[in-house]
């Protein structure tokens, strides 16, 4: 299966009376976005803003971040089973508005989380301070229940990203990159001497604001399965997860999964990227046992030498992570796990809620309990009053002068467990 990604480099976003991509600038008519989102009668008001790297802007609470993409050749369309029809994606050619992102905000629950600062101390910790962001703030109609509210905002972001992606359909990309996954037989024949490595991605799947969708299916209702890495680049996996901002995977993270990117870079040189397995993180312990059994079984069946296992979230997913590592090691496959840490403010506490001697190769995304100080920003998009009540903030964390003292976990993507961040430890 072969996919070409054509990167159209976006150097700026400008609000305009016509939506188009021209000379690397994404022009957006806010009315186009507002009309599109208000097709959903659950949304009462929509505001559209632009946030650029280096500006004194704070976006909060962040619901999701999405990269605009469009399928220009091959079957299916972006976000299959959700925005596009259920049709297999991952082949042909996809255009990407590289450097641009859609950021959705909105108060779904009172303790909503996630900050993106476009400058200052906080900007160092989130990758989305480096993207040109079209920020969409939606307010629901009165009385909308949180389940429907979450869905409405999830779809508002996806629809906006698909609309913007479509503007790049007929634009010549600045750069084209090709990704190819061979079938098992071809892979072994082509690279007989390279170690075969699988990627096991764990997906958050526990309930309201803790969900992930695969081809439109709620991941908690799935068994561990095999997916093509190029399917993920076309939006086969998307985020309905808006809790624990530092270590949730936004839809942008899924589209740009760095584990996939790095395995493709090493493919054919130091290893043979043999395939990708997705597995869920359910609440029920028997589900955890079943899903990790299946992840290990699929690794064994693929006959790989090693597996990289990435986690999503905090606390009970540590148990899924350790089950996966232990069981995959037990079938004779070496593992490396990617996680983050809640090691206390001094970094001295036990980092994970679970452990096992077989999980002996760990990559960390950083300590989410680390205390940071954020300066006042000139402009806030969203709802700053919620800072006191979002993950990582604490009572009194929002000071009268507009500065914030909080734990790192307040920042969207700060300790990402796919490694889409700058923190780690050696």
């Amino acid at each position, binding site marked *: 299966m072969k996919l070409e990604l054509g990167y159209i480099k976006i150097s700026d976003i400008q609000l305009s009376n016509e939506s188009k991509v021209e000379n690397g600038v994404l022009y957006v008519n806010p009315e186009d976005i507002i009309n599109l989102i208000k097709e959903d009668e659950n949304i009462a008001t929509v505001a559209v803003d632009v946030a650029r790297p280096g500006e004194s802007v704070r976006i909060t609470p962040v619901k999701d971040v999405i990269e605009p993409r469009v399928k220009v050749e091959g079957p299916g369309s972006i976000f299959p089973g959700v925005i596009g029809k259920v049709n297999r994606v991952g082949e042909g050619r996809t255009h990407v508005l590289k450097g641009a992102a859609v950021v959705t905000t909105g108060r779904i629950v009172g303790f909503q989380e996630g900050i993106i600062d476009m400058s200052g101390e906080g900007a160092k910790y989130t990758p989305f301070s480096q993207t040109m962001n079209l920020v969409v703030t939606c307010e629901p109609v009165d009385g909308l229940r949180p389940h429907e509210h979450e869905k409405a905002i999830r779809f508002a972001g996806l629809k906006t990203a698909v609309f913007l992606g479509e503007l790049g359909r007929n634009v010549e990309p600045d750069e084209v990159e090709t990704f190819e996954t061979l079938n098992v037989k071809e892979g072994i024949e082509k690279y007989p001497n390279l170690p075969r490595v699988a990627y096991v991605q764990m997906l958050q799947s526990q309930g309201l*604001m803790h969900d992930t969708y695969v081809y439109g299916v709620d991941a908690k209702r799935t068994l561990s399965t095999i997916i093509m890495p190029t399917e993920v680049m076309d939006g086969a996996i998307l985020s309905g997860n808006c809790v624990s901002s530092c270590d949730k995977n936004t839809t942008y993270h899924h589209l740009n999964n760095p584990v996939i990117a790095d395995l493709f870079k090493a493919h054919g040189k130091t290893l043979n990227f043999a395939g990708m397995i997705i597995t869920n993180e359910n609440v029920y312990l*028997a589900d955890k046992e079943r899903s990790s059994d299946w992840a290990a079984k699929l690794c064994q069946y693929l006959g790989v030498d090693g597996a990289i296992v990435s986690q999503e979230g905090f*606390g009970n997913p540590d148990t899924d992570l350790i089950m996966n590592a232990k069981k995959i090691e037990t079938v004779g496959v070496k593992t490396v796990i990617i996680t983050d840490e809640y090691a206390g403010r001094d970094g001295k506490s*036990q980092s994970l809620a679970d452990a096992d001697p077989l999980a002996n190769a760990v990559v960390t995304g950083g300590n989410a309990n680390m205390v940071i100080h954020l300066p006042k920003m000139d402009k806030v998009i969203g709802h700053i009053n919620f800072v006191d009540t979002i993950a990582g903030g604490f009572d009194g964390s929002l000071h009268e002068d507009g500065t914030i003292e909080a734990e790192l976990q307040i920042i969207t993507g700060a300790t990402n467990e796919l490694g889409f961040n700058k923190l780690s430890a050696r």
Partner: protein
Amino acid sequence: MAYNFKIMTNNELVFEKYGNEYEVDYKPGTYEELLLRVRTEVHNGAKLLTHPLSGSIKPNETPFKTVYLKKGKGPLHLDFDSVEMIENAIITAKKFKIRFPVMPDYIRADFALIDLSLMESALPAATQA
């Protein structure tokens, strides 16, 4: 129908919605007090059916927690995996300092709703087991 699980919670919303249908052991109290009550049950042989740290909301944020247990046969029939898991959960919960000594009612209600949703995501598995 008699089920072989029980639900322990400090979330009134769970008790109100499911108290008539299932065995719901509801007692108001803190998150940590609920974990300690669960530990007592585990010490009496109960087996954990859901993870005591379910959800990505930290123990010092949400005041609510709901846990499913399989009823035990007494302290001579300990489930050691459950003992280890509840002890680790208590250690983790103690690591976080309580953030909201006074919480606005609307935020409490949201936390209760999320806990209910996490609890409901395990219900099909529990009732079919």
